[in-house]
């Protein structure tokens, strides 16, 4: 259920609305609407809306609607909500039922609509009917046209048909909300009997949210673009480490969760939502599944902007924004990694960054519940948008510009804890050694047993690096094993790092520490080697970038003349 409580929303009423966009809203209901009024007004604050709400007295819909001189029209609303409840509908049905009940009700609704349209220019939001099964016919009511359930569903269907051709009429689908959360939660029996409330206090925030989603779209603000992370968001696993055969989509592992997620995104794309990719990966590696994996639903031609690199995601989304030339407030960013979500939230507060559930099995249901892509129009032209942006993407990609990287790194407040291998970190070291592919200079795999041998040998020196920043603890992310080659030379037998912490200056921090260690122990040289694999292209210039001299297949660093390379990571004391 929607995570805001009614009490929280009510507290918003005390806030300062004066700077927010003003709109006039009239609410007319055939049941008590005071709470609905409060919920919409209060939650409106979070939609940057200062809603001036006029509420009709209880059960006055016809009186206000059919009288051209009524207070409703004097108020000159921008928006009118009509809320006719299922319970009142049932009361009417109890008095006079039959085959044509729904049709008669629909005629009344059409009259209301036409009177509202003739007397004002407002947009009209009509709540549809939540289902009540009076079980008079049991399940058989599905076969009895005169049953209440049959008539109610027919009425909801006719409402959809009617609204499809009434451009100023929008249906707020509270029937779907009841399906989502259940009637037991939507309807509180004693509040209904004692206070004529047909909506429970608990469901009001969610109903207010859906109403405001529509109002927001009416006022011209809606989401136009979905930006997707790849690893563990678009497919299961990590493409750089697992490889194209082992990522989970289709029948492999929990691939079904990701396939169905992709199908949903594809439907959004077909509706005109722009898809962009923003992934921490080597571009060629990230693109491969889109081109070659048979189970990928999303293909390259579905993507308007494809960004895969090791830069920070806030900058990459700035780039995407520039290419698409749409507002940050019309973008939704989907990423399974809380760190990335926080970075984007912090730097680009206008981008919508939903929390994501831990289990990918929950992704779709969760995303459905957020109603991220409310709209007020749809035409076939919407569907052709992707191509246009693909062309634009090629043009802008050459002029990519980043914000000040150093300021960004400084703001992360990174602290690293350095330890030699010990009983606590051996399992993690061994695990990383088996799995790390991309940032791995020699890709020599060690098991736990091997690691223990190394620890017990006098020829090796081991280092493990943890990294924490203000967003959280990344755990053990870098492993170094040095081997004493001669009296003067230390050889970097192993250097691998988790790709999660790329572009943070971690490699500089590590090297400073290694040189320091070498100096203190009277070594003169540090020697490194890069052994090429199909996956570690990322680090082919690693040692040259850090100032090592190339000497045939090895890289040498003289520690005497080494000056610490600047970085923004502190050592944990």
């Amino acid at each position, binding site marked *: 259920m929607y995570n805001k409580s009614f009490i929280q929303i009510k507290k918003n009423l005390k806030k300062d609305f004066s700077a927010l966009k003003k709109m006039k809203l009239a609410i007319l209901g055939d049941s008590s609407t005071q709470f609905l009024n409060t919920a919409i007004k209060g939650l409106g604050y979070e939609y940057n809306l200062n809603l001036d709400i006029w509420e009709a007295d209880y059960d006055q819909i016809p009186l206000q609607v059919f009288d051209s001189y009524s207070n409703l029209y004097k108020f000159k609303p921008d928006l009118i909500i009509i809320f006719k409840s299922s319970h009142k509908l049932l009361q009417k049905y109890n008095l006079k039922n039959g085959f044509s009940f729904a049709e008669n009700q629909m005629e009344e609704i059409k009259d209301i609509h036409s009177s509202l349209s003739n007397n004002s220019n407002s947009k009209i939001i009509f709540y549809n009917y939540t289902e009540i099964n009076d079980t008079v016919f049991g399940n058989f009511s599905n076969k009895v046209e005169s049953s209440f359930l049959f008539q109610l569903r027919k009425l909801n269907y006719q409402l959809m048909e009617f609204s499809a051709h009434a451009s100023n009429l929008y249906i707020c689908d509270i029937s779907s909300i009841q399906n989502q959360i259940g009637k037991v939660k939507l309807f509180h029996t*004693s509040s209904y009997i004692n206070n004529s409330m047909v909506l*429970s206090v608990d469901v009001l925030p969610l109903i207010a949210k859906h109403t405001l989603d529509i109002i927001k779209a009416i006022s011209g603000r809606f989401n136009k673009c979905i930006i997707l992370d790849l690893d563990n968001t678009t497919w299961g696993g990590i493409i750089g480490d697992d490889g194209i055969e082992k990522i989970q989509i289709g029948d492999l592992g929990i691939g079904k969760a990701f396939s169905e997620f992709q199908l949903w995104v594809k439907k959004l794309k077909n509706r005109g939502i722009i898809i962009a990719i923003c992934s921490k990966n080597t571009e060629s590696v990230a693109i491969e599944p889109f081109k070659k994996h048979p189970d990928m639903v999303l293909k390259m031609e579905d993507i308007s902007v494809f960004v895969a690199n090791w830069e920070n995601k806030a900058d990459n989304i700035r780039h995407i924004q520039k290419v698409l030339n749409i507002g940050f407030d019309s973008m939704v960013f989907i990423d399974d990694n809380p760190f990335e979500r926080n970075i984007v939230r912090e730097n680009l507060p206008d981008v919508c960054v939903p929390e994501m559930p831990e289990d990918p099995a929950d992704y779709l249901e969760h995303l459905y519940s957020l109603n991220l892509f409310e709209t007020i129009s749809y035409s076939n032209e919407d569907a052709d948008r992707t191509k246009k942006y693909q062309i634009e993407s090629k043009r802008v990609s050459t002029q990519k510009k980043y914000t000040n990287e150093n300021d960004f790194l400084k703001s992360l407040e990174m602290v690293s804890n350095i330890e030699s291998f010990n009983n606590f970190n051996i399992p993690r070291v061994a695990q990383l050694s088996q799995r790390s592919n991309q940032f791995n200079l020699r890709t020599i795999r060690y098991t736990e047993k091997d690691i223990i041998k190394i620890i017990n040998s006098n020829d090796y020196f081991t280092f493990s690096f943890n990294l924490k920043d203000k967003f959280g603890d990344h755990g053990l992310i870098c492993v170094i094993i040095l081997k004493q080659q001669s009296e003067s030379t230390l050889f970097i037998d192993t250097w691998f790092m988790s790709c999660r912490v790329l572009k943070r200056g971690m490699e500089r921090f590590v090297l400073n520490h290694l040189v320091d260690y070498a100096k203190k122990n009277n070594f003169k040289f540090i020697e490194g080697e890069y052994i090429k694999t199909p996956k570690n292209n990322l680090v082919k210039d690693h040692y040259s970038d850090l100032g090592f001299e190339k000497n045939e297949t090895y890289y040498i660093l003289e520690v005497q003349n080494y000056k610490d390379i600047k970085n923004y990571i502190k050592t944990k004391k």
Partner: protein
Amino acid sequence: MERNDILSQINEIFIDTLDNEELVIEEATQATDVDEWDSLTHIMLLVAIEKNFKIRFTSTEILSWKNIGDIMNCIEGKI
């Protein structure tokens, strides 16, 4: 649960729901004694109490309450 515990939990709920940090209620407190306690906040209060104690009040019970003590009797009978 001690009667005092019930009272203090209800007091917390009143403070949170009515957004008034200073509110102190007693068994004899009635709706007329508390400014913010009107027919609307009454519904919020009872729903919050139901949630807190994981109980449901019947519609008759709700109508019969005169003061906090009555609500507490009702709660005691259900937990």
